[in-house]
C-alpha cells in the first residue's frame, strides 16, 4: 500500500511497488512504536508530496476527496492506491458534485488528473469544476450565512464554546493547510489553473472505433480500452515508480464517471442476466490491481440504482475499497418528512477499508444527510443536530433552524410555554439540552 515513503527501484520488492509505512516521514508527524521495516531498507528519503498527508493510524498516505467533511467521515481522507465508489443518487444530481470536488482538489493540489467519461468530454468536465475558496472568502461565506439567519453578533463566541465540547472535530480552513480545500460551486475554476494542471482525458466515443477488433477477453471493449489507457498513463508518467529519475513524485487522480451505465457498452443496468455480467467486476479487480501498484487514487460514480441484479451490487461493493452511497429525496416519500426538511438527501458510508490494519477509523455518527447550499455542499448528522451540534467541523458555523426560533422566543416566553412550532421541530431528546442552554443563558 502506498505510504508516506516509497522505495527506489533498487529495493523493489517482489511484493507491491510501494512499501508499507516507512520510516521516512519527513513531515512533523512522529510515530511512536516499532516501525515496519519490511522492504524499506535503502529507500530514498521522499519529500512529502503536495496535497497528501499520512494517516494518524498507520502512516497510510491519504489524499483529500475535496470535501473536508467527507474526509473526516472516511477517517482522514482517501488512501492512495484505493478506489472510492460513489453510488449515484437517482437522478444523478449530487454525485457529479462529489466527482467535481475530487478533480478540483487534484488541480489545486497540483496532482495529475485522468478523467474518463462516456457521456461528456473531459475538457468540458474540467471547465465546470468549482472554484477554490481562499480563506478570506470562506469566512465571508460563513458570515453571510450567519447574518442571513439574523443571529446576534456574539454567536461566534458560542460557536467557540461549542468547539470545546467537540475536541475531535477538525477546525475550519487554516490558511497554511494544504490538505483539503473548500470550493464555491457557483463559480467556475479559473482558466489558468486548468491550463497549468496536467490532465489526461478519456472520452469513450473518440477512443472506440466503429470496427472494433474482437478481443478474446470477456471485458467489454470500452472497459478494455479504458484499462489500457490508464495503464499506459501510469507507466509512461512513472506513477508506478518505473521511472526512477523522476525527482518529483506526484499522485494521479483518476475519475471515472457513470461506470456501468449503458453508454460504456455494458448492459448490466438493462437486463438482469446479461452476457457481460462479469465485465464490470473484472474491470474493478484489474483497476484495483493497477492502483495498488502505483501512486494513484480513483473515484468512480456508478448508477447502482439501475443495476437489476442485486448480487452484482454486492460483488461490486466487495471489490471496491471505500463505498459511499447518495440517496436524494427528490420524488421519494422522505421529501415530506419533517426530520429531513432542510436536507436534500442522505449519505450512506457503506464500506470503509481496513488497510494495513485490523481495525479502521469509523465515525460514530450515522444518519448523515447532505444539503446543497447555493455555494457549498455540506454534510450533517440528522441525529446529533438535535443536540445543536453536528458531526463535522465545517457545519458548526451553520446554526440550526431550531435555534433561530429559540432566540425569538427567548424574550417572550418561559420554558413551559414553548411555541407549537418548536415542539413540532424538536423531539423529546432535544429539549433537555435546550433547557440547559436557556438556563445557562447561552442561547
Amino acid at each position, binding site marked *: *500500500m502506498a505510504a508516506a515513503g516509497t522505495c527506489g527501484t533498487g529495493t523493489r*520488492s*517482489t*511484493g*507491491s511497488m*510501494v*512499501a*508499507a*509505512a516507512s520510516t521516512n516521514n519527513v513531515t512533523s508527524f512522529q510515530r511512536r512504536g516499532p516501525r*515496519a521495516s*519490511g*522492504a524499506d531498507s535503502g529507500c530514498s528519503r521522499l519529500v512529502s508530496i503536495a496535497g497528501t498527508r499520512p494517516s494518524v493510524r*498507520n502512516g497510510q498516505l491519504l489524499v483529500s476527496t475535496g470535501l473536508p467533511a467527507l474526509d473526516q467521515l472516511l477517517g482522514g481522507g482517501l488512501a492512495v492506491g484505493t478506489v472510492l465508489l460513489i453510488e449515484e443518487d437517482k437522478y444523478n444530481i449530487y454525485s457529479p458534485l462529489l466527482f467535481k470536488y475530487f478533480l478540483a482538489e487534484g488541480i489545486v493540489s497540483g496532482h495529475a488528473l485522468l478523467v474518463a467519461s462516456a457521456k461528456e468530454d473531459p475538457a468540458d468536465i474540467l471547465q465546470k469544476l468549482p472554484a477554490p475558496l481562499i480563506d478570506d472568502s470562506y469566512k465571508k461565506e460563513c458570515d453571510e450565512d450567519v447574518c442571513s439567519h439574523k443571529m446576534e453578533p456574539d454567536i461566534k463566541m458560542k460557536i467557540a464554546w461549542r468547539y470545546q465540547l467537540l475536541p475531535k472535530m477538525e477546525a475550519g480552513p487554516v490558511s497554511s493547510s494544504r490538505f483539503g480545500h473548500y470550493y464555491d460551486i457557483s463559480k467556475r475554476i479559473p482558466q489558468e489553473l486548468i491550463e497549468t494542471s496536467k490532465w489526461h482525458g478519456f472520452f469513450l466515443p473518440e477512443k472506440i472505433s466503429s470496427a472494433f477488433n474482437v478481443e*478474446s*477477453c*470477456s471485458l467489454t471493449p470500452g472497459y478494455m480500452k479504458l*484499462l*489500457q489507457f490508464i*495503464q499506459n498513463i501510469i507507466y509512461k508518467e512513472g506513477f508506478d515508480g518505473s521511472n526512477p529519475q523522476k525527482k518529483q513524485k506526484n499522485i494521479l487522480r483518476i475519475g471515472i464517471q457513470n461506470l456501468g451505465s449503458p453508454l460504456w457498452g455494458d448492459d448490466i443496468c438493462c437486463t438482469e442476466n446479461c452476457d457481460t455480467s*462479469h465485465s464490470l*467486476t*473484472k474491470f474493478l*479487480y*484489474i483497476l*484495483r*490491481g*493497477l492502483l*495498488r*501498484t502505483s501512486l494513484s487514487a480513483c473515484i468512480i460514480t456508478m448508477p447502482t440504482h439501475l443495476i437489476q441484479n*442485486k*448480487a452484482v*451490487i*454486492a*460483488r461490486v461493493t*466487495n*471489490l471496491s475499497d471505500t463505498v459511499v452511497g447518495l440517496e436524494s429525496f427528490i420524488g421519494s416519500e422522505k421529501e415530506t418528512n419533517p426530520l429531513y426538511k432542510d436536507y436534500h438527501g442522505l449519505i450512506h458510508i457503506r464500506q470503509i477499508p*481496513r*488497510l*494495513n*490494519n*485490523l*481495525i479502521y477509523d469509523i465515525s*460514530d455518527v*450515522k444518519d448523515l444527510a447532505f444539503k446543497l447550499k447555493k455555494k457549498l455542499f455540506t454534510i450533517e448528522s440528522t441525529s446529533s443536530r438535535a443536540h445543536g451540534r453536528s458531526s463535522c467541523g465545517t457545519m458548526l458555523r451553520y446554526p440550526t433552524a431550531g435555534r433561530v426560533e429559540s432566540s425569538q422566543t427567548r424574550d417572550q416566553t418561559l420554558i413551559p410555554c414553548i411555541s407549537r412550532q418548536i415542539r413540532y421541530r424538536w423531539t423529546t431528546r432535544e429539549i433537555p439540552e435546550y433547557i440547559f442552554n436557556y438556563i445557562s443563558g447561552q442561547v
Partner: protein
Amino acid sequence: MFPELNNLLNTTPEGAEQGKLTLLCDAKTDGSFLVHHFLSFYLKANCKVCFVALVQSFSHYNMVGQKLGVSLTTARERGQLVVLEGLKSAVDIFFRPQEEPHPLQFLREANAGDLQPLYAFVRDALEPVDCGEAAWRCPVLLVDDLSVLLSLGVGPVAVLDFVHYCRATVCREWKGNVVALVHDSGDAEDEESDVLLNGLSHQSHLILRAEGLATGFCKDVHGQLRILWRRPLQPTTPRDRSLTYQYKIQDKSIFCCEPSSEPYSL
C-alpha cells in the same frame, strides 16, 4: 494469531490438527481478521503455507502479520511461505500476456473455464520436497477469498472442483490443511455464492462464521462469531458442536465474550 481464538478453538500451534478443511465465512461484516489469524497461526506452527491472496496486496498482510507476531517477508525468504498476489498478477497477465500457463490464466479468457492452472500452482508450491531434513510440519493452503473468483467469471462448480482437488491432494495425500474464506451474500440473492457456500459447508470440518449483529452497528461489539465443528474425527462423538461468541477487534487482539442474555441497555 489471536490467543483468545486459539482457546475457543482448543488448538495450539504445536498441536494443530491435520487433514482438515476449515471454512471461514462472513455475512454483513468483514471476516478478514480470521484469515490473518490462521495465516499467523500456521506460520507459527512451522507449517509450509501457500497463500492465495486475491483481495489485498502483500504488504497489507505483512503489516497485519507483524502486529500478530509473524513476519511474512522473512517466511517468504525462508521458503516457508509461497504467496500468489492476485492483484499484482492480474495486472501482469492482463497487460503482458505470458507464454507459460499462469495461475490466473482465466482472466484473459472470455469463458473462464476451470482453475487447473491455479491448482497446478498450489500443487507445485506445497509438494513435499524429499530432502534429508524434515523441513516443515504439514502443508497448508490458505485462500483469501473464493468469492472473488466468482466475481471474476469463474463458475461456482469450477471453484468447488478446485477446492475438491486441493482437498484430495493437500488434506488427504499430504495430510495438510486447507482454509478458505467465502462471503455470504445474505439477502443479495447471489445464487452462485449460495451454491459455493453450501457445497463447501458440507465438505468442511470446521466452520467459523463472522456475522454482523442483527441489531446493526455497535461500537463495543463488532459482530458475532459462530464456530461449528463438523465431521468429528473420532466416530465416538456423535453430534456436531457449535458455539457462539461476540467479538470486538482491537488493534492487535480480539476480545471474545459470551453473548449476553439481557437485551443491550442504552
